C-alpha cells in the first residue's frame, strides 16, 4: 500500500481571497488505486486537483508526488510528467488542429525523440479508442470523443497518475460513460493511479475509495458502499442517495434482509430477487412444517 500522492496539512487561499479554499487537507493516495472526489461547486475540488501537479502550491503544509515536493520549483516538470491532468471543458485543452498533433504536444514539450513520440501517440490513441480519428479536426468530434483525445494527450506523457477534474460535467450521458469507462480501464488495465473529481455519484460506485470535500475540508473518506449507505452523511453534504442504496435501505426498513450493500443496478436487482426467493422458501418450508405442529 505505497502512497503516491501525499497531502500534509495543506492550506491554500487564492490571492485576494479572504476565505481559505483548502483548509488543512491530509490525504494519502495509494499507488494504482481509483479515488473519486465528490463535492458541490465551490467546495475546493478543482483547487485540490491543481495541487496534485504543481499548478498551485500550498500556502502552508506540503504536497508530495512520488516523493517529490511540489513546491520545489526545479522539479516542476518532474511532477507534471508524472501527473496527467484532464479538465472540464474539452475545447479549452486541445491545442492542435489535428487529433494526433494534439496528442503529441506533451511528449514534444518533454523533448522526446520523434520516433518515440509517434509510438506513444499511436499507443495512447489506441488505448482510448480514438486511433481511427487521428487525422480528424478536434472541433468536429463529439464531447466524449474530445475528452478521450484529451486523455490520450496526457497518457502520451506516460504518467503514473491521472487526475480528471470534472471531465464529464459538460457531456451527455453517452459521453459520460465513454470517459468514465476509459478512466476505469486505465486504472484496472494499466495499473495507473486515477483521481476522478465529479458530482455524478453513479460515476463513483466502482471506485476503490470516495472522498467528500466540503468548504475546503475532507468530510468523508471510505469505500463507496460505506459512503452511499450513510443517509445522514449524504444529506448533510447536499447529495442524494443513489437509487440502489436508497431502495435497499427502504426495503430493509420494511423488514427485508440483505447481506451487505449493492450499488450497481444489476447487483442490486439480484440481491432483491434472491431475498424475495429466500423469503418465499422459508415461508413454504414453514407452511409445510406447520400442519404437523
Amino acid at each position, binding site marked *: 500500500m505505497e502512497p503516491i500522492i501525499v497531502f500534509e496539512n495543506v492550506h491554500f487561499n487564492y490571492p485576494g481571497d479572504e476565505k481559505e479554499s483548502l483548509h488543512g487537507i491530509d490525504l494519502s493516495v495509494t499507488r494504482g488505486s481509483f479515488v473519486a472526489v465528490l463535492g458541490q461547486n465551490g467546495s475546493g475540488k478543482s483547487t485540490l486537483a491543481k495541487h496534485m501537479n504543481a499548478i498551485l502550491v500550498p500556502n502552508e503544509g506540503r504536497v508530495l508526488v512520488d516523493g517529490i515536493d511540489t513546491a520545489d520549483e526545479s522539479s516542476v516538470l518532474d511532477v507534471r510528467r508524472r501527473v496527467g491532468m484532464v479538465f472540464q471543458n474539452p475545447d479549452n485543452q486541445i491545442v492542435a488542429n489535428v487529433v494526433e498533433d494534439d496528442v503529441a504536444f506533451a511528449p514534444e514539450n518533454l523533448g522526446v525523440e520523434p520516433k518515440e513520440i509517434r509510438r506513444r501517440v499511436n499507443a495512447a490513441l489506441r488505448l482510448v479508442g480514438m486511433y481511427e480519428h487521428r487525422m480528424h479536426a478536434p472541433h468536429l468530434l463529439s464531447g466524449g470523443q474530445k475528452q478521450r483525445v484529451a486523455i490520450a494527450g496526457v497518457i502520451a506523457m506516460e504518467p503514473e497518475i491521472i487526475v480528471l477534474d470534472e471531465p464529464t460535467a*459538460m457531456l*451527455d450521458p453517452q459521453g459520460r460513460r465513454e470517459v468514465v469507462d476509459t478512466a476505469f480501464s486505465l486504472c484496472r488495465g494499466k495499473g495507473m493511479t486515477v483521481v476522478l473529481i465529479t458530482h455524478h455519484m453513479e460515476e463513483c460506485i466502482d471506485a476503490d475509495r470516495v472522498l467528500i470535500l466540503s468548504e475546503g475540508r475532507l468530510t468523508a473518506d471510505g469505500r463507496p458502499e460505506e459512503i452511499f449507505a450513510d443517509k445522514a452523511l449524504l444529506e448533510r453534504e447536499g447529495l442524494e442517495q443513489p*437509487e440502489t442504496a436508497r431502495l435497499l435501505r427502504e426495503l430493509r426498513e420494511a423488514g*427485508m434482509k440483505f447481506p451487505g450493500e449493492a450499488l450497481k443496478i444489476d447487483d*442490486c436487482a439480484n440481491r*432483491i430477487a434472491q431475498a424475495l426467493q429466500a423469503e418465499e422458501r422459508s415461508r413454504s418450508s414453514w407452511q409445510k412444517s406447520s400442519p404437523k405442529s
Partner: protein
Amino acid sequence: MAEIITEKLSHVYSAGTPFESTALHDVSISIPQGQFAAVIGHTGSGKSTFIQHLNALLQPTEGRVLLDGQDINKDKYTRRDVKRKVGLVFQYPEYQLFEETVYKDIAFGPSNMKLGKEEIDERVREAAAFTGVSEELFERSPLELSGGQKRRIAIAGVIAMRPEVLILDEPTAGLDPAGCAQIFENIRCYREKSGATVLIVSHSMDDVARLAERIIVFDRGAVVMDGTPAAVFSRAKELMEIGLSVPKAAELAVALRDCGVGLPEGIFTHERLLAALLQVREGRKC
C-alpha cells in the same frame, strides 16, 4: 392561446454543399397550451434543431411551424413577434450575460420590446423572484457571481419577456445536484404561476420523470416515441438500446424483471418501484 403545431417539419443543414446533413425529418407534433413537455434524445438527434424552429431562429427546409394557428415564418413581423411569445433559453445561457449589472441584463429582453420603464421594472423584479435571484444582487456585475447564480439570471432574462411558451435547452448542464434541483424548482414554480407552456430538453431523466406530463423522444432527426412518462419509460429497454439513459428506478425495474421478479409495467419513480416491490412481497406471502 399558445398552442404550437409543427407540420411535417424537416431541416437540412448546408443544403447543396458536400457537408449537407438532414437534422430533422418529417416532424409533426402538437403541444397544447399549458403543457409541460420534455424533449429527450442524445447529442445530434435533432432535438436542439427542433427547438430552434419553434421561435423562428431556424427556418424549416420543408413543412411549417404554427403558433396559435398562424405560420410563424409568414413574414419578418411574425418572426419577430414569435421571439417574444416563445422564450428560448439556450444551453449554458450564462455565456450570454453582457450588461454591467444584473438588473440591466435581466431588463435587456423587455427593453428590446420597447416597454415603459415601470413595466420593465415590474417584469425584472417578477422574473428575479421566479428564479430566486435576490434583489440585493441587482447592482452587482453578473460576471462576478457563481455559476449557478449566473445561470438563474440568464433564465430570468428570458422569463422577463413573459413568454407564453418557455423552452429550455439543458438548463441544468454542468451544475451540481443542489444547483440542478434549484433550477428545476424555479421552472416548476414559473409554470405553475404563469400557466405557460414549458418545453425542456434534458438528460436528467429522474427529474424529467418527476416533472413532465409528456415526453418526446428524438432519434436521428425523427420522433420515435411520444407519450406520458409512464408510457415512454415502460419502453425503457428500447430507450437504453438507442443509447439514452432512463430513470434509475426504471432501469432497476428492467433488471428486476430480468431476474424474474414479476413487476407491473410503467414503473419509473422510486416511490412506485418501492410500492410495487412491497406488493410483490405481500403477494408471495399469501
